[in-house]
């Protein structure tokens, strides 16, 4: 059961980022930069939580982490704006833009950490949210470990998934976003603002990846540590593909990766060297992408820049 609780905790950052990736790619924009956006989220989440806690000593304990979470999301949005500008407005290849974003994030996080805290690689320790328990589930003995003392962000993440599925399937915004990712020229002739919708998709993905980063540093790490994202931004992309570009699918896939990760943290004494256990999620990602588990169909215009003149 402890394994399951740990799996749930480890699922959340992958899940939130995968959900972000769904929004971005449904709108037709690859976002390899999600890893970098997460890094920004981990730094700003921890740094702003720390500063808020110092600035508001008398406030309720949950105020500082809340401010930090919002800052992580804002940083994610600001950072993803660069990706949108470079790849949607200037129509530079989306993979190149994302790769550059990741390089920028690594340097920026180090520099900012030096400026804020004097060292390059970690922030002071911080306090996260007060853990919550789910009223009915905690009374069921079998579910108690995963229903008591959990981060409220876990519940928020599950809520965001359900909302995401509804938004994409049932709202005008969702339909328009998907149309822009499937056939931007057709969407354009119907008067849908292709550039605007793609910006929306990318910025939402930035907010969610920023939130995922904030969760990592505020709730899980209790502080920022360089490299704490450990490639989860990329694993999230695999989860999105495995989830067939739908939020509920991403939930299932992220849970699988979260489980592998929890397993890799726990299995220590086996014949398999521990170094290989730690890359179980990465191996699983490759198998998923190769379609050994299931075939996937991406949005038709995913990754293709759109220009009015050339279509």
């Amino acid at each position, binding site marked *: 059961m402890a394994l399951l609780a740990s799996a749930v905790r480890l699922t959340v950052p992958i899940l939130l980022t995968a959900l972000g990736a769904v929004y971005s790619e449904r709108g037709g924009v690859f976002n390899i930069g999600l890893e970098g956006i997460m890094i920004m989220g981990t730094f700003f989440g921890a740094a702003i939580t720390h500063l808020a806690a110092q600035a508001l000593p008398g406030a309720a304990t949950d105020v500082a982490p809340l401010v930090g979470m919002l800052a992580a999301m804002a940083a994610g949005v600001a950072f993803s704006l*660069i990706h949108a500008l470079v790849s949607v407005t*200037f129509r530079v290849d989306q993979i190149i833009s994302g790769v*550059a974003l990741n390089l920028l994030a690594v340097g*920026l996080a180090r520099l900012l950490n030096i400026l804020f805290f004097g060292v390059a690689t970690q922030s002071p320790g911080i306090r996260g949210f007060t853990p919550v328990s789910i009223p009915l589930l905690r009374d069921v003995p079998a579910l108690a470990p995963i229903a008591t003392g959990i981060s409220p962000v876990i519940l928020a993440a599950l809520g965001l998934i359900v909302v995401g599925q509804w938004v994409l399937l049932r709202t005008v915004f969702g339909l328009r976003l998907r149309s822009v990712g499937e056939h931007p020229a057709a969407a354009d002739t119907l008067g849908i603002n292709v550039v605007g919708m793609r910006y929306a998709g990318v910025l939402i993905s930035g907010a969610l990846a920023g939130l995922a980063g904030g969760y990592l540093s505020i709730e899980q790490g209790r502080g920022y540590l360089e490299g704490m994202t450990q490639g989860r931004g990329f694993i999230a992309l695999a989860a999105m593909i495995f989830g067939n570009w739908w939020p509920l699918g991403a939930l299932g896939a992220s849970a699988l990766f979260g489980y592998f990760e929890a397993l890799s943290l726990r299995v220590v004494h086996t014949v398999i060297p521990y170094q290989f256990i730690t890359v179980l999620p*990465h191996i699983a*990602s*490759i198998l998923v992408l190769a379609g*050994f588990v299931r075939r996937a169909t991406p949005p038709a215009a995913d990754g293709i820049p759109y220009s009015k003149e050339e279509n």
Partner: protein
Amino acid sequence: MSVRFRLGLLQILAPFLAIGFGALVASGIILAIGQNPLEVYGLMVRFSLTRSDSIAAILFKATPLIFAGLAVALSFRANVWNIGVEGQYYVGGFAAAWVGFTVRGLPGVLHLGTAVLAGALAGALWALLPIGLKLRRGAHEVITTIMMNYIAGALVLYLLADVYRDPAQAGTPRVRTPEFPPGARPPLLRPLLDAVGVSIPEHSALNAFLLLAIVLCLTAAVVLARSRFGFEVRATALNPMAAEAAGIRLGRTQLLMFLASGAVAGLIGLSDILGFFGYFDIDFPKGLGFLGISVALVARNHPIGVIPAALLFGFLDRGAQGVQVFADVPREVITILQAIIILAIVVAYELLTRYVRAQRKREAERLVATPVVAVAEGG
């Protein structure tokens, strides 16, 4: 002719404009930490270009970056994204090291040659899985290669810590392989440079891998520009469907270029590992594969352009050391400068490409329109 001249000039100016833009943004950061950007840049240039040890350091730093940039460029040229250069470099570096410390009794040149081949082969093998999965099963190579990077890191760590750790280092915190015999070490360039009157410091580890890197770039450029295979690669990149219709086997072209990319990636670490350390250490330089992406982008994936681009990054890296030590500016400022240069450069190239296309279109329209005008004037 003048249009052509203008376009040529723009092509050359574009990277400089992007570097200027990057420097401008970085100036803002330098100002924000309370320093004078002009002084910092001045110090950087003086420190990097006027000291003979700096020149040697830039060339030594550029050596792995030329391999890395070329590796990335080779795959990008064929429209496949090898983001796994980092992992191929780990595996290739370790394979070369393994030949270095296990093989005994080979004469010098052969030992070194075997190590180089092992590095290239291991790099290509590590690239085989992602490209195979892409061509056979449609798995997106960007994500699979990134995953392969993590797996390569774990594999090398395992081999280093649990299998091949130097028994002489047991009990110390050092995790490294046994040392290589002199036969596996590349010849240093200092005697050669001395002979032509260029003096570099005695401790410089600048070695023959710099020459190998340059030769590989030139070879790649000639093959791409002049050979039948090079034509197929260019056709594939320009218009995959037309290329396929013309009988070019798309998958084969991409497979070969991707494997070549992996093979070159396998050589990235050799200058450092064989030429400088003399053993494979757990703290071997990391991130060179990712820097290779930057180098290739600045070079617009041209094998010869990779050389000046790698020198630029070598210069920035050396300059970063200078400003960190002498101006108290964190070297991360220069890392950010690099990333901004990349973003600015890709935007500049994109705008340029679009401008060129628009110019060509206008010219074509004028050519089509001319006879009509002549007839109208005649009537």
